């Protein structure tokens, strides 16, 4: 069957392969340009395919020869189309940006990003991410998933020659992503076994008749696996390590496109293949989402590494999406389908919005990193005059990410809030208890997000440069500006006229909840289920008019006053130095103190007295660090235990051939005995 969707998806995959081969064989001089153009074309074609699927042009194909035994089974429905379109759009921005980013910057030298590996693997990574939502059978899905994991791993460690920490980050990522794969593999294999077939259609049909225990086990395993990809607390530990260390356009692809596929997996398996489930599933999802949102944004609020901050913000946003999914599932069990559809629409819209602003923010952070070699907010500052384009771009992204009106994050969080508030009366005690808590978590995380991004923008870009590197920063090449500009344009469009996504989102939601239309309207969004409306465009016009009026009034009020030019007040002494500025650490200090019990910051004060007297101080050193508590409390003991087991297991292999033969013999006999007994 041929259709626009199929043709565009094939074109996109073809373009990725071409771009990958261009990246592998062309000479270094033209390699980034050729691969970048190819990847951007692939992304654009994917957007076409995804949008076509979201307008109802579903497509499916079976290529039995491509994979041995199972064949490749593809199907694009509106739900998959949504994720394909988002991935494609992120890929376009990142690819265009990558053309400039790979060029060596003056002063900081190349990061080797125009090497063959990176240039060839990046298009493959995009292709794999496009295949995941298009897969329609377990084997195809897992192959695409693993391809995606491996490609992203190669990209994460691209700069391992330049920084020690890259290797560590790669290790964490590799382990976490493969543990996730094991969980997903177990879940899908179990589901396929219970359904006696591995195509998604088959599983969908058979899911009704399965025992609740099997369904529950499948869901929990799949949820764990997909949540680890989506960076949900406590499976998030790879995210704040891998995102900062990966090249920035790769961070953007990972944080804005790849983590979405975790959400996709949860929706696909939980809602679609299993056809929904009992209440406890969704309470689990909701709780994980709320915890992730709060923990993520708290860590982001106290982070000083710009890209680490953005990575934690991804944890937060994916948590919010999961709150939406959990609420949706819960409402389905309470038989409040219109509200459930609203919650799901909000969640999916938030996926789209998050992708737009997180792409923008990571690209802008990369631009700063390339120009200064710094990610530490405490060392930046003063970029507004030196990198005006990047600053403007980051400002747009920060506004969006802080979920304030005029930003696109606001629209989806508002929808989510409406669905949560609307569901207070539905579904008895459980919802009556959980929903207010969820509303509280949502509100708190939105508030902390504002503080986080005020900090990131204020200390990173405004004021005066705190280091010579920041002082010497220069604006990035045009290609990077174009990449960021495209992402910013998406943010603005999504913020002002979000209604253009509504029909597509409605179709995507209808895949799992047939017959529901949660949101309507062109300029004003109307929510029938929560009986409320909002018009982002009118809000924007209102704010613009009010701001213009206020400015005019101020102008008018001061016309009859004499203006006096005065020195900046610096306590009479001056000059003010950059050391006097608020730093990211000092800005976050009150928050850190409030949430002391959760964050458990480590501070070290070392006072060295003079040799002559213990009362005279020679020097004082102060060190403060906010580590990831979950990592140190949960993962360190696990790693220590695994290491101990590994050490112990080594004693089994002492090099004696006789012993090895004995192992083989006894194992074989053991298996035979077990078989003989059980059969």
């Amino acid at each position: 069957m041929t259709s626009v969707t199929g043709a565009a998806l094939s074109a996109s995959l073809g373009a990725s392969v071409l771009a990958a081969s261009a990246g592998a064989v062309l000479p270094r001089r033209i390699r980034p340009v050729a691969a970048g153009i190819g990847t951007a074309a692939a992304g654009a074609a994917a957007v076409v395919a995804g949008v076509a699927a979201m307008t109802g042009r579903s497509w499916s194909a079976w290529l039995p020869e491509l994979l041995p035994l199972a064949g490749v089974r593809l199907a694009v429905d509106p739900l998959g189309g949504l994720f394909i379109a988002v991935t494609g759009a992120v890929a376009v921005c990142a690819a265009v940006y990558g053309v400039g980013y790979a060029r060596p910057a003056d002063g900081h030298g190349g990061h080797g990003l125009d090497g063959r590996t990176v240039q060839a693997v990046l298009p493959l990574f995009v292709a794999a991410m496009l295949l995941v939502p298009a897969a329609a059978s377990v084997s195809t899905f897992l192959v695409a998933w693993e391809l995606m994991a491996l490609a992203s791993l190669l990209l994460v460690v691209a700069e391992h020659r330049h920084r020690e920490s890259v290797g560590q980050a790669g290790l964490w990522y590799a382990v976490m992503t493969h543990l996730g794969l094991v969980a997903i593999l177990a879940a899908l294999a179990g589901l396929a076994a219970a359904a006696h077939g591995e195509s998604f259609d088959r599983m969908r049909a058979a899911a009704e008749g399965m025992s609740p225990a099997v369904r529950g086990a499948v869901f929990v395993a799949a949820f764990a696996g997909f949540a680890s990809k989506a960076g949900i607390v406590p499976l998030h530990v790879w995210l704040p390590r891998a995102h900062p260390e990966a090249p920035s356009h790769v961070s953007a692809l990972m944080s804005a496109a790849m983590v979405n596929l975790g959400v996709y997996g949860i929706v696909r398996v939980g809602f679609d293949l299993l056809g929904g489930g009992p209440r406890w599933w969704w309470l689990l999802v909701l709780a994980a989402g709320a915890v992730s949102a709060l923990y993520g944004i708290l860590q982001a609020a106290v982070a000083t590494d710009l890209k680490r901050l953005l990575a934690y913000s991804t944890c937060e946003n994916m948590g919010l999406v999961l709150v939406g999914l959990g609420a949706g599932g819960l409402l389905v069990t309470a038989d409040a389908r219109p509200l459930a559809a609203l919650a799901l629409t909000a969640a999916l819209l938030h996926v789209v919005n998050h992708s737009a602003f997180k792409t923008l923010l990571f690209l802008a952070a990369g631009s700063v990193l390339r120009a200064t070699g710094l990610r530490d907010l405490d060392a930046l500052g003063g970029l507004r005059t030196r990198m005006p384009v990047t600053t403007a771009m980051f400002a747009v992204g920060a506004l969006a990410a802080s979920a304030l009106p005029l930003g696109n994050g606001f629209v989806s969080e508002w929808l989510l809030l409406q669905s949560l508030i609307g569901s207070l009366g539905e579904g008895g005690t459980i919802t009556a208890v959980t929903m207010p808590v969820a509303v509280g978590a949502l509100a708190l995380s939105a508030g902390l997000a504002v503080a986080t991004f005020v900090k990131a923008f204020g200390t990173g870009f405004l004021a005066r440069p705190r280091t010579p590197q920041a002082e010497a920063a220069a604006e990035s090449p045009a290609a990077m500006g174009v990449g960021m500009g495209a992402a910013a344009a998406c943010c603005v469009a999504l913020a002002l006229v979000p209604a253009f996504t509504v029909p597509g989102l409605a179709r995507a939601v209808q895949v799992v909840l047939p017959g529901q239309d949660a949101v309507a309207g062109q300029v004003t969004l109307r929510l029938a289920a929560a009986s409320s409306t909002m018009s982002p465009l009118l809000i924007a016009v209102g704010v613009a008019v009010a701001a213009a009026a206020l400015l005019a009034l101020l102008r008018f009020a001061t016309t009859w006053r004499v203006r006096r030019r005065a020195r900046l007040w610096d306590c009479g002494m001056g000059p003010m130095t950059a050391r006097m500025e608020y730093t990211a650490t000092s800005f976050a200090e009150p928050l850190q103190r409030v949430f002391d019990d959760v964050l458990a910051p480590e501070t070290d004060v070392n006072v060295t007295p003079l040799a002559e007297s213990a009362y005279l101080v020679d020097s004082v050193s102060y060190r403060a660090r906010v580590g990831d508590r979950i990592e140190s409390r949960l993962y360190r003991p696990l790693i220590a235990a695994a290491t101990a087991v590994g050490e112990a297991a080594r004693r089994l292999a002492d090099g004696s051939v006789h012993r090895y033969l004995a192992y083989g013999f006894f194992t074989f006999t053991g298996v035979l005995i077990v078989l003989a007994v059980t059969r």
Partner: protein
Amino acid sequence: MKDLLRKIRKTGRVAEDPPERPAESAPDALRELGGSVQLRHVDAGSCNGCEVEIASVFGPVYDAERYGARLVASPRHADALVVTGPVTRNMEMALRRTYEAVPAPKGVIALGDCARNCGVFAGAYGVVGAVRDVVPVDVEVPGCPPEPEAIVAALRGLTGR
């Protein structure tokens, strides 16, 4: 809380009754301040004796805020400066800049003998001169240190209350 309330009731009012209103003595430039003068205190090199008296002027007993005078935290918020001590070399530029930072109309009170004529510090190696030598002075309060009553009277002269 109950203890606190009881304490408040038992202590009652400690502020002294306001003495007769002194004759208006505000310089013309400051008349338009209309009964409310915000003050920024600058220690230009004082021995801190004057500061102790200023503290008691704004304490509960003399309570100068009754008459519309108030200490503020920045010259940008102030109408007038209260300068104590002789102007030392280290504070000369700071005093000039502080004076520039006060929005017009503005005034300067030289408080204490040191501020008026360098007092006991006259001729010391670190002293630039009296306050008058650095910024224009409108009101002077003599004494080493001046008594709170004298300071209050000078402030009431400015506020006209």
